């Protein structure tokens, strides 16, 4: 993160896996997906966090939640 000149605030958001905070700080969703891949957070897990829900709560809102 040092090498890519992230600010202290940005580093903190990455360390906390605060995806909602990262998007609000101007993160591109497709770049954030790569952080998700590297940290074991799928798109749907990041999405649930951005919605303010647990992963299980989020899945309940879907039409066919088996299509993951």
């Amino acid at each position: 993160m040092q090498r890519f000149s992230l600010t202290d605030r940005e580093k903190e958001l990455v360390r906390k896996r605060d995806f909602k905070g990262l998007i609000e700080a101007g993160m591109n969703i497709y770049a954030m997906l790569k952080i998700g891949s590297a940290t074991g957070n799928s798109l749907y897990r990041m999405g649930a966090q951005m919605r303010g829900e647990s992963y299980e709560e989020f899945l309940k809102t879907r039409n066919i939640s088996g299509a993951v």
Partner: protein
Amino acid sequence: MGRVVGGIGLSHVPSVGPVVDRKREQDPAWKPLFDAYVPVREWLAKLAPDVAIVVYNDHVAEFPFDKYPTFALGAADEYAIADEGFGTRPLPAVPGDAELSIHLTEKLIEDEFDLTVCQEMGVEHGFLVPMNLCFPHTPAGWPVKSIPLQVNVIQHPLPTARRCYKLGQAIRRAVESYKEKVNVVVLGTGGMSHQLQGRRFGFMNEKFDQWFMDELEKNPQGLAEISHHRIMEEAGAEAVELIMWLTMRGAMSPKARRVHRHYYAPMTTGMGLITFQD
């Protein structure tokens, strides 16, 4: 001479990739999507295209943001599979048609579309998922040659929907001026409704998606006037990818016949499918 024999508008949802790689197409949650492509594949087998021009967007796999092209056309005889950050998918490299690409480059630039021309270009899910759905590969490789056309729909400012439609019309003129006999299908990919960021993650709007397909069929010129803002507001931020369907539609004649249409929205993206034949 070259001919545009068919056009397909379809979503390029990334989760389809692992389903194909793990042979889960018959899983109950995925079967409705793959079943919709059975008649499309039969139709394509009859059309027997030589080349598929795939209009898609990269998602920061091959094109990072340090230099970002609005329109980038592949001009190679082979396209590598790009790594999107979770390992490279086990797919054969995609054969291209560099000679046709060079012709397209010359004609499209003459027609005032100032392309970035890529003699090396890795392709990712935006391109590969539509290929998986329409042109399944075998151990022998892919059944058709492809030409990737990458459009910036993720880093604003984006080209307008109208510009994308006119690009399709220019592609048709360019294909028809090709000296060799070649049958081309054009795939316009992306969308439909979806939002991947912020509190509205998971937002879909089937009503908008069905309207978009209606207009694409019957009133493409009118639809080409749609603003990015309207698409993003009504169908989600990432739905703006739909402007690439207009490139496909522009490459078909205004009176082209609609052949197939399907819609399935299981998780977070309206997965649309529409085909046209001239």
